[in-house]
């Protein structure tokens, strides 16, 4: 039996992010106060309140539905939310806590999305699907939207297993190539009149970081020459209102910077499918260099053209290296950089290095 031994994303965190996408006002995590602390803090920066039922050892032993019910009532009094997301944790779900019963007893079932999920539920996408299914059953999203997102999430899981960090028993960490060195390679292609395909294939809000690579390369092309082909998964007509807004905002920033998008490859929550579309476009008209930002392993062109992969996380970088991308840049934590009430394109390490390279 093969076990993936390195740390993997949690279904609880995926559920919390999806609840944020549904614009819940408060997320209640039914678990210990430290459970999913980091995603909780990041989501708070995004304007979602996150509280926990602060479970302790006694609560595991004696059960804590009553305590959860009291927390829900208090949350309702304090924040007067329109919509509440209620997520399980390993501890509460394994002892069989009934989230809906607690919400019902608090008189808040009608406005609470109850997600019976924990970190042992399987792939992280399971958490997102649980939330979306519940949202559909509450009439918050139409069935078609649920089915579309479910299909994308299942494709994402398959992608991770085939080409992502779920494909190996243990993937070591790696810092990647120095951004300055990679910037020199990009600028060299442009300066020699070559063609750079700039592929944004990002996941939701992380696009606010990766879009900066596109801006920087286009800026470099204006100064040095060469040709830039921009492909982006920024279809503003796809997804939940929040993610459609992300696409509109980034397209607006591109427009302000004079960046023309040559092809929209899909929605901002469709990176497994949009990656495939970007791949076909690149293979039909191969560039001298393809710079793929976000989820590069969804754009499987590393054996066909010279590539730069830009992603986040030392394990993802290691995986991209082993897949055969020529250069791999590890950006700063994309969620850390891109979460926040004031959504705008954030400076990336590679983008900065390219700009510095232009000036040098």
């Amino acid at each position, binding site marked *: 039996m093969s076990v993936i031994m390195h740390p993997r994303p949690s279904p609880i965190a995926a559920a919390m992010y999806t609840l944020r996408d549904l614009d819940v006002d408060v997320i209640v995590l039914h678990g210990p106060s430290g459970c999913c602390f980091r995603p909780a803090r990041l989501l708070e920066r995004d304007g979602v309140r996150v509280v926990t039922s602060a479970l302790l050892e006694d609560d*595991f032993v004696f059960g804590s539905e009553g305590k959860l019910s009291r927390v829900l009532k208090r949350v309702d009094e304090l924040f007067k939310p329109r919509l509440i997301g209620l997520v399980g944790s390993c501890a509460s779900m394994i002892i069989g806590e009934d989230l809906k019963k607690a919400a019902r007893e608090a008189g808040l079932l009608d406005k609470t999305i109850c997600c019976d999920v924990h970190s042992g539920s399987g792939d992280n996408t399971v958490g997102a699907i649980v939330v979306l299914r519940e949202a559909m059953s509450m009439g918050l999203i139409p069935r078609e939207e649920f089915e579309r997102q479910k299909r994308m999430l299942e494709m994402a899981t398959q992608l991770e297993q085939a080409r992502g960090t779920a494909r190996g028993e243990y993937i070591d960490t790696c810092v990647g190539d120095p951004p300055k060195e990679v910037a020199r390679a990009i600028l060299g292609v442009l300066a020699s009149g070559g063609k750079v395909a700039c592929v944004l294939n990002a996941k939701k809000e992380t696009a606010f970081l990766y879009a900066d690579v596109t801006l920087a390369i286009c800026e470099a092309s204006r100064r040095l020459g060469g040709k830039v082909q921009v492909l982006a998964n920024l279809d503003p007509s796809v997804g939940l209102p929040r993610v459609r807004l992300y696409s509109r905002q980034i397209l607006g920033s591109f427009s302000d910077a004079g960046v023309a998008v040559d092809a929209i490859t899909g929605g901002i929550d469709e990176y497994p499918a949009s990656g495939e579309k970007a791949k076909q476009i690149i293979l039909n008209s191969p560039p001298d260099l393809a710079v793929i930002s976000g989820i590069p392993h969804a754009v499987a062109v590393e054996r066909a053209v010279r590539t730069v992969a830009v992603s986040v996380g030392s394990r993802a970088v290691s995986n991209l290296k082993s897949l055969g991308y020529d250069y791999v840049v590890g950006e700063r934590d994309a969620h850390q950089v891109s979460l926040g009430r004031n959504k705008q394109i954030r400076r990336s390490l590679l983008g900065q290095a390219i700009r510095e390279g232009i000036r040098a």
Partner: protein
Amino acid sequence: MRALALYGKGGIGKSTLASNIAAALGGRGVKTLLVGCDPKADSTINLLGRRIQPLLEVMREEKRPPPERFTMVGFNGVSCVEIGGPEPGVGCAGRGLIIGIRYLIEALDLEEFDLVIFDVPADIVCGGLAVVVKEGYAESALVVTSDEFMSLYAANNLCRGFTSIGAKVGGLLYNRASERGRAYVEAFSEKVGLPILGSVPLSDEIKNADRARRTMIETDPSSAASAAMISLADSVYKSRFSVIPKWIPAEDLEAIFVGDA
């Protein structure tokens, strides 16, 4: 100090045997502690005549309570503790047992006793219920069984569990013994390699004593049922047999009952 843990099918009479063994040995000057591990917290009721506040409930009020807050002395000087646990259908009894037992061992000096009996609920359905033998708090387990198929089926499952966690078992305690059923228990005993340490007959006197919330030893010390309890207690206390048991496939167990053994 000897420490033993009674396991067996739910309702088979573990608490009745545990409290009577403790009472019999207590009456002979053996300093005995009975630790009830069932969330129902009723193992010690026959020694005390009433329920005591379980340790886990005390710990909800005071994280590290002193022994006098959760220990009581019952009939024949037997010290009694109930670990307790959640109401049926909520929480996690196994986790409760782990926490309760670990604190008990820390708070009480078990070496002060000659004998500690852990009365553990039902089957080893989770890691928590195995903690007493798994973490070595009891040197060996004793399996209580009757001669009914489901009771031996549970005993066999227990043997399987003990084998898998490498826990030692001291033998079988044959409760509600009957002339007709003895052969089944003997056949099972032979197959799993565990001796029958003693037997107690099915008895209305014992049922009546239970109903009165007293041990048989206290209710009628001169009765045949009391004599059986005392004999069983002696055997349990004296026996040093301890082995990781074998277990048998379900069809072999069924064969015992159709006379094919």
